[in-house]
């Protein structure tokens, strides 16, 4: 009964009853088995697909190491930044990765507060994605400073010069915001892992696994008294993580919005960036979840309904991003500021028009397919859409950063920014870092939050599932 295959459509929408979130009429034990089985495979018997993927991502990670090493030994001049475009790929990639991380916190924290129980199928997955995405993000501020050995200047550490960080700078707020975000996400993820690590500990067959999982499970027994405080702490973390995730990308947006650069200084940036972050983050979750559920046999836990709900959220956040585009454009005209309005016209018609229209197509046009039920429940289509959306969101940051800097107030200073090979290799390399971590996570840690999924099953309330997920016939719910 442990193998779970086959696609069951639980996306039906009947106001009288909620569709089951675990399909296939599974028992609690089935859930434990389905998730732990993946982790318990002996290292020798690791699936070939995983090994190949891991090998590829480690090589890309190696390439990242080489690119960064070259950067450190030669200097920041190996990147394409110059006058007037003093910010380039580094900040674009930083914002891109931080944005991707936000979906995980949204799923963990915000959907928890909204009692969206379907989140349990994907929250472990998404939280792990957040942590790895934030690591990739933190890479860029770390390596871009030029004299990397002085990176400790960013922190309020007493030093021989009596110098403190410039706390009035948004770049420093970033250090605190992303640092806090990483810490809190890691804590949140770990706290959620404890009961599942206990499951692995109790099923462990080798001493090493028992020791390691047992160590990190902290001796968890599932005591109700412990659960009570655990749930409180979880709720508090969710309630903290919600404003935190809003604040982090808002602080990132402040990097731009506090300036006077046309196209950057606009008050709607904070919520617009947050919406965009959630948008791209969900796209990344989708990109990862679709192959994972396929290869690891988790279709009954990460069901069609989960995928469809994610698509709906992508549509909603995509529309918020579109709203922000239109408001910015309107106010750019309304403000009467020649520079501001020009910045927007230049984006659409100027030297970076190719990037702008890629962005608009991927961010505004592509998600529109999700209005159609048929399209948002079609797996290949949603997979391709998720890739395109991430491309579009990367280009959005590209357009914001590059086009505004390349043509700001003084036409005599305008120039065209070209990334160098090292820029591009570093970007690709960061994906290597991300996927290496993520593949390790998938292999050695439980991908689905078993304890939380079990809470959503009818067995948790003492009932048996009455449908395997498909819409029950009218007689069934008389």
């Amino acid at each position, binding site marked *: 009964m442990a193998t779970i295959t086959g696609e069951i459509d639980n996306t039906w929408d009947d106001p009288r009853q909620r569709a089951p979130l675990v399909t296939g009429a599974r*028992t*609690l*034990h089935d859930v*434990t088995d389905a998730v732990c089985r993946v982790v318990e495979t002996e290292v020798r018997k690791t699936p070939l697909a995983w090994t190949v993927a891991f090998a590829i991502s480690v090589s890309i990670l190696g390439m990242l190491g080489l690119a960064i090493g070259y950067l450190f030994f030669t200097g920041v001049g190996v990147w394409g930044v110059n006058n007037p475009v003093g910010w380039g790929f580094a900040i674009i990639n930083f914002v891109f990765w931080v944005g991707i991380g936000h979906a995980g916190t949204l799923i963990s924290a915000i959907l928890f507060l909204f009692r969206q129980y379907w989140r349990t199928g994907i929250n472990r997955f998404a939280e792990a994605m957040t942590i790895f995405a934030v690591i990739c993000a933190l890479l860029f501020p770390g390596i871009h400073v030029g*004299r990397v050995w002085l990176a400790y200047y960013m922190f*309020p550490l*007493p*030093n*021989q010069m*009596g110098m*403190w*960080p*410039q*706390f*009035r*700078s*948004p770049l420093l*707020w970033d250090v*605190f*915001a992303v640092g*806090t975000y990483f810490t*809190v996400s890691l804590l949140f993820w*770990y*706290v959620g892992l404890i*009961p599942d690590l206990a*499951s692995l*500990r*109790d*099923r462990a067959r080798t001493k090493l696994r028992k020791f390691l999982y*047992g*160590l990190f499970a*902290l*001796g968890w*027994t*599932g*005591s*109700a*008294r*412990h*659960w*009570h*405080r*655990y*749930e*409180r*702490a979880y709720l*508090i*973390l969710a309630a*903290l*993580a919600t*404003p*935190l995730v809003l*604040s982090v990308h808002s*602080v990132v947006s402040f990097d731009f919005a506090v300036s006077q650069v046309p196209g950057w200084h606009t008050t709607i940036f904070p919520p617009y960036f947050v919406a965009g972050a959630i948008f791209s983050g969900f796209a990344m979750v989708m990109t990862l979840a679709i192959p994972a559920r396929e290869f690891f046999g988790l279709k009954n836990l990460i069901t069609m309904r989960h995928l469809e709900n994610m698509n709906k959220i992508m549509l909603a956040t995509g529309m918020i991003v579109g709203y922000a585009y239109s408001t910015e454009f309107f106010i750019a005209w309304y403000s009467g500021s020649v520079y501001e309005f020009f910045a927007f016209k230049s984006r659409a018609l100027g030297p970076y028009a190719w990037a702008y229209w890629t962005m608009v197509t991927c961010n505004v046009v592509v998600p529109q397919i999700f209005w159609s039920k048929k399209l948002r429940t079609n797996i290949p289509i949603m997979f391709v859409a998720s890739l395109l959306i991430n491309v579009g969101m990367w280009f959005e940051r590209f357009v914001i950063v590059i086009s505004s800097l390349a043509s700001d107030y003084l036409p005599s200073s305008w120039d065209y920014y070209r990334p160098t090979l090292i820029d591009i290799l570093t970007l690709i390399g960061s994906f290597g870092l991300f996927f290496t971590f993520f593949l390790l996570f998938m292999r050695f840690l439980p991908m689905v939050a*078993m*304890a939380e999924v079990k*809470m959503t099953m009818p067995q*948790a*309330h*003492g009932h048996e599932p009455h449908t395997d997920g498909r819409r029950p016939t009218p007689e069934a719910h008389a």
Partner: protein
Amino acid sequence: MSQATLPAPARTAARGAANRPYGVLVEFDSPIDLKVAAEAARDEGFTRWDTHSPFPIHGMERAMGIRMTILPVLVFACGATGMLTGLFLQWWANASDPIAYQFVFEYIPTWFQAFLGYGFLVSGKPYFSLPANIPIIFELTVLFSAIGAVFLMFGINGLPCWNRPIFQCERFRRVTDDRFFLCVEAADPKFDPQRTLRWAESLGGAAVEVLYDRDESDDQPPAIFARVGLFSALLALIPLLIIVMARSSKSESPRWHIIQDMDNQERYKAQQAMPLFADGRSMRPVVAGTVARGAEFLQEDEHFFRGLVDAQLATSFPPRDPTRDEPLIVDDAFLRRGQERFNIVCAQCHGRDGIGQGLVNQRGLELTGDRGGAWVQATNMHDAEPRGRAHGHLFNTITNGIRTMPAYGDRIPERDRWAIVAYVRALQRARNARESDFPPDVLRELEARRP
């Protein structure tokens, strides 16, 4: 159907210490059954008991009579601490005005000076800019709250605690899978080995087991841990030893210059050889036929530009100003210019009257007076020595400095320097005037005023 298991296995019985029961464990296969049992246990009046489940069961707190935890209040306190930390940190670092320290700076020990705040202005924003400080205050509030929530939760729960008697039950492994347990500890005042066991059996669970306190004497970590630990500790000392050795020994080789920091640049320095040219020099002479751009570049006029006449310090003013290509006339306008420049550039130290009691000089004496010698008194222009100097000497002093007076040549163009020299001469003459210096009518007036 419930069954009571036999007492402890022979292994622990042989040790003799472990026949003491720890508690009674009942297994259920449905959360509803567990809840009912929990209510029964609560009603029985047990206090040292608990239920265990793979996930939190809805309504179990009520069924067990668990009171709401104090955790939220503690987390709030952590958050408030974080908020105040953020506020204080930013105020201290950027706005606790160090200018106030200059009077007490000498008394602050050097090691503490690294901790002092350093206020610097950035784009005109106030030192303490609350709107700009909010993001960090917020982040620290959240950070402290989250860390507090997690570690206080661990603390209150008594985690980590890896060693529990309840783990000895094989069936208990399914607590994290799909089984539900109720455990009453023997330490509970209402516990009675027979009665409680019968009560447990009456609950209708799938199984009942008696747990015993374990003999833990054979729970030693493997010996390899100690050996590996000792070895690693010794290994960890090596870097420290290297540092100690390095600090307490001398070496004749140059330091390792790891962080190059643009220190050794691949460029040709002055006087360096370069094989590229036939004469082997990297410094190239001016190309034949180069035309200099005006008097200021060639500075051929030694008298005007350097105050020298026939390699001697000039005793007269230069007759011509090559920068304006006109004669240099020491007239009233020229002297006024000199006065203006003198008052701007020189009077700080030398005073407007040239005596040498300018404000900077006074301050310098005040700051360093008791240390003697650290500040050199500005020259009194009216002393015999400066009066006796040639014009060229004064010009040279302004240009290149003298003793501890810095060189002002880069700040004052040559014409202005000559104007200052002329004005100094006027000052000197004014201080040491003779009757013949006065116009007759002024002289008559002064005579009239003589008491």
